[in-house]
């Protein structure tokens, strides 16, 4: 099958075959990173705009490098230095950009559905690079890609996602993506950081990290944000770390070959101990590297590339 969508707004609406197509295409893209001269002419003459309403280092840089390696013209707009600070609405910003004929607009925005609003207004392909606590599809795809490098058969694998599920778009996209690929997902965290109805997503829930990580193939730790403390969702980072941090002691309860993942940026010593983050089964840096391949694959597919079927 080929890629038929104009936009990538979320993982929830993707079919397993489409996810497979992206992962397979990324496999061939990854080879470019190992070349001496990291440039192919695939997207020459195409324009990619990164429109970021929230701060981002890795995702924005990753899209920028991915676009440049494919020879696209990549423009970055950070809203703190744009007309948005003058009160321009998302609609008007979108229509203004449309007049400049971009082929792809990559948007990150604090509100769920903002990329969908843009997708309705623009002819350009829209890639959701994170909308509030809704979805971060490219992150989930790169996570699956990273797991698949180590465990070629995703079906039947078990994953535990630990931390602030309530506010996490990474968690939602990964839950949808993993389930579509036949994986079993368990979420873990304090009750205040798990959505009240999280089980309606078809996941298992646990309040004990020791139980949650005991039998899984993948442990995905999420960043805990300091500002949630002020909102009364947990008392202190210290107590959080004590109850839910992944440290070497807890690692002894996990399977010896468990894969450790984290979407970054990590809080060393809070949700993950440095020895674990830097340990032998940590895939944290692989995730960053694979992000390039996934984003190259998506830019390629969304601008009309036919994809690779392995």
């Amino acid at each position, binding site marked *: 099958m080929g890629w038929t969508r104009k936009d990538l707004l979320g993982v929830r609406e993707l079919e397993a075959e489409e996810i497979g197509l992206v992962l397979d295409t990324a496999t061939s893209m990854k080879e470019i990173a190992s070349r001496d001269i990291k440039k192919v002419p695939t997207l020459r003459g195409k324009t990619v705009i990164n429109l970021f309403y929230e701060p981002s280092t890795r995702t924005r840089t990753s899209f920028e490098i991915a676009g440049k390696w494919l020879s696209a013209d990549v423009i970055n707009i950070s809203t703190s230095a744009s007309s948005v600070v003058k009160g321009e609405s998302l609609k008007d910003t979108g229509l203004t950009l449309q007049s400049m004929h971009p082929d792809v607009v990559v948007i990150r925005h604090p509100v769920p559905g903002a990329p969908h609003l843009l997708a309705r207004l623009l002819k350009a392909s829209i890639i959701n690079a994170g909308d509030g606590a809704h979805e971060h599809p490219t992150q989930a795809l790169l996570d699956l890609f990273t797991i698949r490098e180590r465990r070629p058969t995703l079906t039947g694998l078990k994953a535990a996602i630990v931390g602030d599920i309530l506010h996490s778009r990474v968690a939602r996209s990964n839950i949808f993506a993993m389930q579509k690929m036949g994986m079993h997902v368990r979420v873990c965290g304090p009750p205040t950081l798990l959505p009240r*109805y999280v089980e309606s997503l078809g996941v298992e829930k646990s309040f004990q990290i020791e139980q949650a990580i005991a039998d899984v193939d993948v442990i995905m730790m999420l960043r805990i944000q300091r500002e949630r403390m002020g909102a009364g969702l947990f008392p202190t980072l210290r107590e959080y770390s004590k109850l839910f941090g992944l440290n070497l002691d807890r690692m002894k309860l996990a399977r010896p070959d468990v894969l450790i993942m984290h979407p970054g940026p990590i809080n060393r010593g809070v949700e993950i101990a440095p020895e674990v983050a830097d340990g032998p089964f940590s895939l944290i840096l692989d995730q960053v590297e694979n992000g390039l391949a996934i984003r190259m694959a998506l830019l390629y597919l969304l601008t009309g590339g036919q994809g690779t079927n392995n």
Partner: protein
Amino acid sequence: MRILIEGGRVIDPANQRDAVLDLLIEDGRIAALREPGSARGGGGAPPQTDRLLDARGKVVCPGFVDLHVHLREPGREDMETIATGTRAAACGGFTSVCAMPNTSPVNDNQTVTDFIIDRARRDGLVNVFPIGAISKGQHGEELAEIGELVGAGCVAISDDGKPVMNAELMRRALEYASLFRIPVIQHAEDAHLTGKGVMHEGRVSTELGFKGIPAASEAVIVARDILLAELTGSHYHVAHVSTAEAVRMVREAKARGLHVTAEAAPHHFALTDEAVMSFDTNTKMSPPLRSSRHVEAVKAGLADGTIDAIATDHAPHTIQDKEVEFDYAANGIIGLETAFGLTMTVLVEGGVLNVSQAIARLTCDPCRIFRLPKGTLSVGADADVAIVDPTREWVYDVKRSASKSRNSPFHGWKLKGQVLSTIVGGKVVWELEG
């Protein structure tokens, strides 16, 4: 001026009437109800009237009465005016509307009430009954001059849009309002539990990553207020009930003999939170669209009379207030033109109410609880009448709305049950074209 409405099925729940009759209007009042054709002379000669309306095969009922609209005037005439809002009301078969006080300035003093009443007399197509604020500026701190508001024509008080969070103020409002025998209307929502929530908390909010508003946010305030209604013996009215728990508590309060009443909005029985999956900001309202369990409870409440009235919460907003990211969009939708169609389609076709009960929830029931002298076709009553076709199918086109605003999630909906003519005080103020 004489109008004869001939041969319609007259449904007047206030008088338990449901029969094919001729309705004669004279000088703005209901003059007579007679056997069909009795006004005609020998050989069926046309009767002597200024206007003859053929209602054969149609339903003739009291004009609808909406306890909850936002007309936006004074202050936000870019969203709606008394002229456009009452025109939308007339299109929807409403002959009386109660206007919420969250205008700019707030209707918290008799000068604003006077303005609304004057403007309604000048521009209004239907009767407008103002609702005054509970607290000065709707700030929830000090009582407004409720006596003067009532003196000027307010029929109830409410800080609608904002809940009265201070229980002591709510208690005093209930006590004080009992002096004037008017209801205190609560927008029941706990501001802390709602926080920055933008939709119902449930499976859909979990999937979409929106901050949810738990059903308990409404229910805890209703529970508190029912205790205060019991303490004070006053009339407490819950606006736009949306949760199963609130419906249950109102039912229990009524069973215990407390003076507690409630209304529900058509969108709360016609839509669930699934509609938010589209990210359409016309699915954003306060209280939010709830899950099907709550929608079923609202229907059951309407069926057994726990919920007394259907009220639209007609809330016009400009395009720029809605065509934005969901979190930033204004709450609310326009509802006057779709209320009857939704009531017939969802409640009557859906087997929740019969036609007569549905009309009661739109006419005599709201009038009874707010003590409004409307909602009946009794001889001598004001001739506020709607002629409707309860089975006619039509498609709602919001682009042709009489409202100044266009914020409706029902655009393009096929509805069964259409308003054909609206008569206010013996004057035909609106007729369906074609």
